[in-house]
């Protein structure tokens, strides 16, 4: 019995990360595909939410804890709300505009399939420079402290520039959304 459990643990240690990765990757690709093909744009928006959450899980698998949390807060909490509001405020379209027509889907395939083939060819055909030796485990204290230090030293100018850009965006979006109403 104990031997069996030990063997099971061994198998899990060997295949566990792979099972986790493939599960999350399947969720990401399936929800992204549904977001592309869904007939109604609101279904598409909610499927996109699942996709963003899956990408956050992938970041966590990659050991980027801070980025995973940022992804959930900004994408799932912020951009998704914006998109859902956009759908709610503009969804008075005739049905044929909501659907992906066969004609545009064929056009899309003409662009997307060569892009996919070229990318896969490049990714699979290149010997990527990689860390020497086995991959080190992510640091137990997380990446937040390191990212904070980098943002306030090496990347201080982009960081400050980003805050200015966000302010301009805030004002600009508010001004634009008010539109012609005086």
């Amino acid at each position, binding site marked *: 019995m104990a031997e069996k459990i030990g063997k099971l643990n061994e198998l899990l240690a060997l295949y566990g990360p*792979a099972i986790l*990765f493939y599960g999350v*990757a399947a969720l*990401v*690709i399936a929800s*992204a595909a549904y*977001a*592309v093909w869904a007939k109604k*744009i609101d279904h598409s*928006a909610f499927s*996109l939410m699942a*996709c963003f959450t899956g990408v956050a899980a*992938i970041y966590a698998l*990659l*050991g*980027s804890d801070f*980025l995973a949390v*940022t992804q959930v807060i*900004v*994408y799932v909490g912020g*951009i998704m709300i*914006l*998109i859902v509001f*956009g*759908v709610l405020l*503009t969804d008075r*379209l005739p049905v044929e*505009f*909501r659907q*992906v*027509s066969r004609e*545009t*889907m064929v*056009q*899309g*395939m003409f*662009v*997307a*399939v060569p*892009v*996919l083939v070229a*990318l*896969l060819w490049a*990714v*699979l055909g290149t010997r*990527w420079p*990689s*860390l020497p030796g086995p*991959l080190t485990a992510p640091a137990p204290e997380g990446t937040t402290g390191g*990212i904070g230090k980098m*943002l306030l030293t090496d990347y201080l100018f*982009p960081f400050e520039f980003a805050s200015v*850009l*966000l302010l301009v*965006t805030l004002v*600009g*979006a*508010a001004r*634009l*959304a008010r539109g012609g109403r005086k």
Partner: protein
Amino acid sequence: MIPPALYEIGLTHYLVLSAILFALGILAMVSRRNAIGVLIGIELVLNAANLNLVAFGRFTTAGLQGPVFAIFVIMLAAAEAAIALAILLNLFERTGSVSVDEADELKG
């Protein structure tokens, strides 16, 4: 037996996932006629790019530079989504639709 390349998750696995996500985003951008669908495609493409940055940060000596770059991309994506939706609301008020085929007033 299962070949080790399949279960030893490395840089290539993440890059392939990101390539698929990128292609799906391009497909949404080209095939959707609803402008919000195009925006959804753009978000998918940006997520694919971020995935690449983080994967390279983890598997090469780039270290934390990958995640830091990804944070800036997320920030730009948020700004871009806000502006895009403001423009869409204006377009909807003017023309009564958000179809990208009908928004051709600027065409010379």
